[in-house]
């Protein structure tokens, strides 16, 4: 029973972070109908930014998370305003394919740059709550894991508030419904698209920063983020922010339980197996409103 509780806690905490990683992808897909392969590298940038900021200044880790979030957001804005500009302006024939290809190239460039510029060593600083929490045999967990989960929850709530309670959110929802309609009512599509990608990338950067004290920063950390993110948004339904949040929690649980009780050798495979099952039973994902071509 103790192991079950411990596993459940581990699964939920992992799922919270998966949700944060995935919700940015879901946001971009939901609003702009494109997917970006460089999303994981935004997390990598956030992770390194938090590390270097904390290491250089010795500042409170909350500021390091802010630095990671800002770095991810800035990188996302830059990517959107340069590489994806023609997509936002509607001047490419196949925006989905174009986005995948160009962001894949960017992803490889960023990994190679990190590898050559920063080096291959994993980097880590102390997090906000580096002490471990021990409750007998029931729950043993690091404070950083709890911080990551709470941080993810707070950011998701902020995102929901942004989408539902601001003009920016209304513009995104309009874009999501109809690009042409949004333009007709005066939405600056390029600006809002850039903002959307920047916010999604900032969330990835925040996830990278929150994870860095536990899992370290290294050049290929984004690969894991991207794979988990795509599984989660497929589970939750492409473009559904709520689905991404719930899909993240589900993936965390589904990965952790078999890894504990069956074999840890196939951890990633459990997520893919679940994804296949969900696609068979719910082709639009569990919370997806509609299916988009990719």
């Amino acid at each position, binding site marked *: 029973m103790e192991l079950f509780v411990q596993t459940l806690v581990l699964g939920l905490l992992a799922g919270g972070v998966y949700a944060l990683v995935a919700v940015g992808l879901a946001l971009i897909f939901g609003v702009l109908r494109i997917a970006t392969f460089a999303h994981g590298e935004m997390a990598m940038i956030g992770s390194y930014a938090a590390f270097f900021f904390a290491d250089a200044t010795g500042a409170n880790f909350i500021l390091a998370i802010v630095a990671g979030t800002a770095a991810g957001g800035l990188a996302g804005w830059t990517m959107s305003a340069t590489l994806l500009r*023609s997509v936002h302006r509607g001047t490419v024939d196949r925006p989905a394919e174009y986005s995948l290809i160009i962001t894949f190239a960017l992803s490889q460039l960023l990994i190679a740059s990190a590898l050559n510029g920063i080096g291959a060593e994993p980097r880590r600083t102390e997090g906000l709550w580096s002490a471990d929490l021990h409750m007998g*045999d029931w729950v043993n967990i690091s404070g950083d894991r709890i911080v990551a989960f709470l941080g993810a929850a707070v950011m998701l709530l902020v995102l929901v508030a942004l989408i539902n309670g601001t003009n920016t959110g209304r513009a995104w929802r309009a874009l999501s419904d109809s690009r042409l309609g949004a333009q007709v009512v005066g939405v600056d599509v390029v600006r809002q698209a850039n903002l959307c990608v920047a916010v999604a990338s900032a969330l990835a950067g925040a996830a990278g920063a929150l994870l860095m004290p536990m899992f370290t920063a*290294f050049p*290929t950390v984004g690969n894991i983020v991207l794979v988990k993110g795509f599984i989660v948004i497929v589970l939750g339904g492409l473009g559904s922010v709520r689905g991404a949040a719930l899909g993240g929690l589900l993936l965390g649980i589904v990965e952790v339980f078999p890894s504990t009780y069956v074999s840890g050798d196939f951890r990633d495979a459990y997520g893919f197996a679940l994804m296949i099952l969900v696609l068979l039973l719910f082709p639009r994902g569990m919370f997806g409103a509609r299916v988009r071509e990719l």
Partner: protein
Amino acid sequence: MKQPLTHARAVAGLLALAGCIAAVASMTARAATSHVTVDEVVIAHAAPLSPPGDYKVGREFAAVVDLWATTTNAAGGVVGRKVKVVRYDEKGKPELAASVVTRAIRQNRAVLVLGGWNSSVCISSAEVAHRYKVPYMSTGCWTDDLTAKNYPEIFRIGPYNSLTALGFAPFIKAKRWSKVAILAENTDLGKGLANAITRTTKGVTFDVTEYQYDATDLSPQLARIVAGKPNALIVIAGYTPAQFLAITQARELGYTGPIITGWDYPNTPAYWAATHEKGVGVIYPSFTASKYKTTRPGEQFKSLYRKARKKDPTLYEYLIWDSLETWKWAATKAGTTKPSDVVPWMAKANLLGTLGRITFSHKRGTVHFNQWEGQRVYFKQLTAVNQSDENAKVIYVSGR
């Protein structure tokens, strides 16, 4: 109306192309393509230099090979010829390794192939080297299979599973551990050594758990291990980020018993950067110990390395140096770098290496063939944060 090509798209396309070129340039073959002159001799270094290979290790090793080449050339080269290193990125993939070793031998005319970190990579590379009868030297692959076929061109100056497991057995016995958990990566190294340890250590109950070698979260596996309350936890990993995670996450999950993990990686700054205070108390096996002096060549290498890299070499870096020195010794004895003449002399190697005398065993029909067996296993314990290898406490010595 859609425009077939806009300025922005052209710029974006160029950026993408530049990205691809940069990525490919840094992540794939790094072989020198310049002509080789008659005064030069080519040796090939095939290593994992980019993902999914363990590029961190590959790059460290590359620096040692370059240091050796520079030092050797400054001293006049090998049999009067300058050494030229061609380097290939095998990315930890056996099929790519076979391809690049073929290119190294056929196109670059390499007379020695050095490399291998993943056991499967070594096996595929060795097959190619054997086909072309070019000497192949490995330091980092532990699989017994490498020398099991008794190919005359395949040599290993480095540990291998059967012998290493024999180092663990007396240590576990001396500690009187009756229940030991092994967390092993799902590679040839992890599976092979876990199997060898459980096979050679009698009277101990082992619980072996495997994990995906590049995992970023080992807490589910460790939760089950910790619930089993083992006397000790052995972590077998060649991919260091996961190895370091295993330590921090085992402690996070409340495991307070001994953790044994190798090999030598606790002797790196990256270890302390990743583990901080959770790295204290960890026991790591090593083939070197500062209180047991390295040889004169070992001191010379350490001095050169420190000057060039501002840190101490790890075990494998000593072994790479020894591998290259052994080939140089054999070429000097043969008076030529021609592989067919050098290989017989390599088999008869007898020189002072960095850690001891280099000779090879020749027990035909066994894995103990063309294998250096001079290592002892020192189990060391880290007793303070940021402790260096030199100050780690040697708690047990086993081996020959």
